[in-house]
């Protein structure tokens, strides 16, 4: 009797563990398939010229050097605008936001996260592009920053809330003013989580195409200034992929591989710098 119950329990336990493991495997295998496919299709076209040259007419080679620079510049500026505002908002929501204002901000941030990114593009088009009378890297970066802010705010808030109350009280009990508790104790304790949230947001905006179509447009040249239209990897991939020639499709795959590789690289870099020391 007892023996059979025991065996049954062991059987169910094994089955359930197996089931969840299968789900985990399924989830990761799709990701690996995508990555593998991109690598196989893209790797052949990658060479030094492709990485450094500007796009040229079909058949004359050319590359995505200016798109890499453009993506980098716009992601950088978007992060400089979006991360401080997003993290600041997250701090407010977590530490002081248990009131009607905080609830409103939280609700609006969640709504904004769900807004299709092309709408952000159109919004910035009317707000920045029309007054400037031309598309620009600045407009692209602002659009990306707007997509970034609610994501960063909400993930930062969650991470800051995870810091135990006892740690805050320990600092308060030493006569630390509230702002020092937040700055010296809570923020460092939540740093890894906040950085992870920031990473997710950077990865997300590096992959955005729609908001850039109206704002940064594209450029065939190297451009280091934010007042001009700017090329980006995603828009360049879009152009390559919608072109009629196989050579262009090949370049689209290669550019995709570069984009994925860059995101992976940023990820590893941030994980390295925010690894737990204490």
């Amino acid at each position: 009797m007892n023996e059979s119950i025991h065996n049954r329990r062991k059987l169910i336990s094994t089955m359930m563990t197996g089931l969840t493991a299968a789900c985990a495997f399924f989830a990761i295998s799709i990701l690996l398939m995508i990555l593998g496919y991109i690598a196989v299709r893209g790797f052949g076209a990658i060479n030094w010229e492709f990485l450094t040259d500007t796009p040229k007419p079909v058949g004359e080679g050319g590359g995505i050097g200016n798109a890499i620079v453009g993506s980098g510049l716009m992601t950088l500026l978007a992060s400089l605008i979006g991360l401080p505002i997003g993290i600041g908002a997250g701090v407010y929501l977590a530490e002081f936001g248990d009131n009607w204002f905080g609830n409103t901000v939280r609700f609006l941030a969640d709504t904004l996260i769900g807004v299709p990114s092309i709408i952000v593009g159109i919004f910035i088009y009317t707000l920045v592009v029309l007054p400037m009378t031309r598309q620009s890297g600045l407009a692209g970066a602002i659009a990306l920053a707007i997509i970034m802010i609610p994501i960063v705010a909400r993930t930062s808030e969650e991470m800051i809330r995870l810091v135990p109350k006892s740690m805050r009280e320990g600092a308060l009990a030493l006569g630390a003013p509230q702002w020092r508790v937040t700055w010296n104790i809570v923020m460092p304790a939540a740093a890894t989580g906040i950085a992870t949230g920031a990473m997710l947001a950077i990865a997300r905006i590096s992959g955005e195409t729609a908001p850039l179509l109206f704002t940064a447009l594209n450029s065939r040249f190297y451009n280091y200034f934010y007042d001009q239209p700017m090329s980006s990897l995603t828009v360049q991939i879009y152009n390559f992929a919608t072109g009629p020639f196989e050579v262009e499709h090949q370049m689209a795959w290669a550019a995709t591989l570069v984009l994925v590789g860059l995101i992976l690289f940023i990820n590893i870099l941030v994980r390295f710098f925010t690894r737990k020391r204490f």
Partner: protein
Amino acid sequence: MKSKISISHLDFYYGKNQALYDVSLEIPEREVMAFIGPSGCGKSTFLRTLNRMNDTIPIARVEGEILIDGKDIYAPKTDVVALRRKVGMVFQKSNPFPKSIFENIAYGIRINRMHSSKTDLEARVEKALKDSALWEEVKDRLSTSAFGLSGGQQQRLCIARALAVEPEVVLMDEPASALDPLATQKIEELVVELKKKYTIAIVTHNMQQAARVSDKTAFFMLGKLIEVNPTQIMFTSPEDKLTEDYITGRFG
């Protein structure tokens, strides 16, 4: 003995729930007063009113008066930050910061700008660790993580951290409840040692501990202060029937 903290007609509410009823009490200077009573009787809540730690709970409300050195700590112009520096606290669960051992102690000194130089800072850290009987165990690994210490060492680190800002009163909320007998003994010896310099209020569930370390004991039940007496008297001939029932283990 001069009174350090003087509490009169203290009522405390969490929203609509009253947690303390009309508590009046004198805590003498440079003595140890123990607070005992069954779980949920309000002794921790009471302790946290003394450094206004309950301010962090939005629905908390205090009525009555608490004077420390004759000053009303709930007066509108009271500087809560200065109050907490004067009235240090050690919590039930040790709560070191995610920093090195040295930085854990240095934190309070730094935020209160107490040190005159780097050498002075190091001297203060060393003194705090010596005062809490931890120095010998950690002096060779001050720059390592505080989380690498054992539970008992972490708790003594938290005591050292509290002492480093030179408080006058130290509140201890069941400081040894999660520790083994040896670590507990160290903390108790420390408490007895500390009362030479500090006024100490300690909440404990362990009645032997109250008997060993305290000069006076206060017994709480259901939010009311039932009895305060010198510890000797409290544990041999308590005045109140409830106290007697509790310390002889008839309930609670």
